[in-house]
């Protein structure tokens, strides 16, 4: 099968109209040696065969409805209101492209304008773009912006920024002359004394994460103050869910706030597609990467929306563009807009609060077990790091849990060889008290 509407008879008729004798004549500019005779891929399937084949593949994965999960570490499982899917899956949202023709795309444009407003409110920032690919690339774009703005080549990154974010940044900067310096952590937070020593007037920016990769809340105000001493910019990567309870980047003076926004109404789906949130200050508006939607008027003076400030972008500026990014993550931005609209200010606060309360309940329950200790005595939101007593093999512990049908926290030894006994546990609103209690009982019952 295929999705071609035209019948063979119609295609023949069209070839006659074109004035060629057969299809091959349309390939006259393609060297004969390149003409393809066949493709070595399997024959097509009917829809029912296709659903059967893909369902088989899907069933080879253990999904999170089957396996209670305490995994987070950059990918968080949250509830999605039914209406989000119902609306977002309408063809009018799913199947248009970037709203180049404003008059035939007012729905998309208005929804992005609403999205930009909500992201500004959430982050406490002045300007938001229409989104970028994911949280990691948003952080990379943030650093690039800071380098363009300050015309400086050195950047400081907290060790407590998610390693994947640091890796993506390294890829983006590959081949340039940027000096990347990592700031170590002490007791689970960025070492501000080390930061003070490293800061100087050649530093373009400091990249921090809040809460950081250990789940711990950073002393953001101190980091911000130190960063700004020598004219550098603060890029803060945050977890949107936390912003219902935790201080937003705008309030501690971040110049650029970025986030992975998939938690706002999109499924975790093995971590992709993501939704890169990108917000900054009015001062940096002209250097922002990606699409922006603005309100204006139409010929009759009525409110209308359009893509704007496009001269920053690659299709006009080419090699002088602020970024090479072309599309945003429109459909996920829409889902986030639907999600935040439904929650409202109170719902958003309660959402964050439930994550916070459940995670603290689980933390208390798990750390009552004799061989499990908190890795750090620090504030956290919905994720925390546990350390198993010396002599206990964390891999063995987790293998046992996996075999008993759990998805336990993420072992940190691979990312942080300095923390061989630690693992990172996340509790969202989707985990019931009963599941937490059962997990605590299971841990207690393990032979370690």
């Amino acid at each position, binding site marked *: 099968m295929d999705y071609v509407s035209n019948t063979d008879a119609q295609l023949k008729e069209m070839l006659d109209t074109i004035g060629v004798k057969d299809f091959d004549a349309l390939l006259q500019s393609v060297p004969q040696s390149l003409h393809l005779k066949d493709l070595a891929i399997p024959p097509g399937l009917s829809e029912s065969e296709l659903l059967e084949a893909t369902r088989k593949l899907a069933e080879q994965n253990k999904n999170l409805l089957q396996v209670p999960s305490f995994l987070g570490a950059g990918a968080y499982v949250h509830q999605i209101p039914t209406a989000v899917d119902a609306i977002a899956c309408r063809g009018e949202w799913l199947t248009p492209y970037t709203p180049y023709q404003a008059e035939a795309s007012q729905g998309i444009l208005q929804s992005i304008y609403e999205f930009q407003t909500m992201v500004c409110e959430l982050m406490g920032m002045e300007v938001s773009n229409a989104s970028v690919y994911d949280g990691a690339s948003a952080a990379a774009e943030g650093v690039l912006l800071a380098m363009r703005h300050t015309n400086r080549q050195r950047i400081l990154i907290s060790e407590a920024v998610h390693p994947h974010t640091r890796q993506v940044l390294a890829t983006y900067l590959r081949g340039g002359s940027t000096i990347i310096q990592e700031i170590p952590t002490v007791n689970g937070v960025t070492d501000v004394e080390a930061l003070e020593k490293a800061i100087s007037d050649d530093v373009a920016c400091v990249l921090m994460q809040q809460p950081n990769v250990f789940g711990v809340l950073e002393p953001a105000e101190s980091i911000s103050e130190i960063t700004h001493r020598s004219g550098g910019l603060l890029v803060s990567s945050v977890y949107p869910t936390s912003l219902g309870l935790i201080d937003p980047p705008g309030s501690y003076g971040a110049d650029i706030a970025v986030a992975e926004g998939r938690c706002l109404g999109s499924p975790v789906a093995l971590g992709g597609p993501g939704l890169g949130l990108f917000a900054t200050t009015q001062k940096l508006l*002209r250097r922002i990467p990606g699409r922006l939607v603005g309100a204006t008027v139409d010929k009759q003076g009525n409110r209308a929306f359009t893509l704007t*400030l*496009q*001269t920053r972008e690659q299709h*006009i*500026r080419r090699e*002088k563009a602020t970024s090479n990014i072309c599309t945003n993550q429109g459909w996920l931005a829409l889902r986030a807009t639907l999600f935040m609209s439904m929650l409202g200010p109170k719902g958003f606060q309660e959402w964050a609060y439930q994550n916070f309360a459940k995670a603290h309940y689980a933390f208390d329950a798990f750390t009552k077990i004799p061989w499990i200790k908190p890795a750090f005595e620090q504030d956290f939101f919905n994720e925390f790091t546990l350390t198993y007593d010396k002599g206990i093999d964390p891999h063995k512990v987790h293998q046992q849990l996996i075999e008993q049908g759990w998805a336990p926290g993420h072992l940190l030894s691979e990312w942080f060889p300095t923390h061989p006994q630690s693992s990172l546990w996340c509790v969202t609103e989707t985990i019931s008290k009963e599941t937490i209690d059962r997990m605590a009982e299971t841990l207690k019952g393990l032979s370690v």
Partner: protein
Amino acid sequence: MKIPEDLLYTKSHEWAKRDGQKIQVGITQHAQEELRDVVFVELPEIGKTVKAGEPVAVVESVKAAFDIYAPVSGTVSAVNEGLTTTPQLINDDCYTTGWMYTLEFSDEAELGNLLSPAAYAEQLKSGAA
């Protein structure tokens, strides 16, 4: 096409007005008309030194951005702040209120490389043909 007699011109459609050891720089009416509605002007920082022919500023319309080049080498000594809030000054009068920046030139001889009004008019004519 208005090409004031008291100015010098570049091939890239900038004008320069000499005042002692300085020149005031803007874009010509031809350039302004090609651009149509100017929506943003990126001005240089005062004190920036540039060589003749280097980009100094950027003028943007909705769908295009154009570099504005230094007619001669020198140091930027003033910019037209009014353009940051009212970029349309360039459309309103590109030769007076729409000036862009002032350059203290470092080599007077370079002024000799600029086009006279007649030569610039000739260039426009041949370009149009």
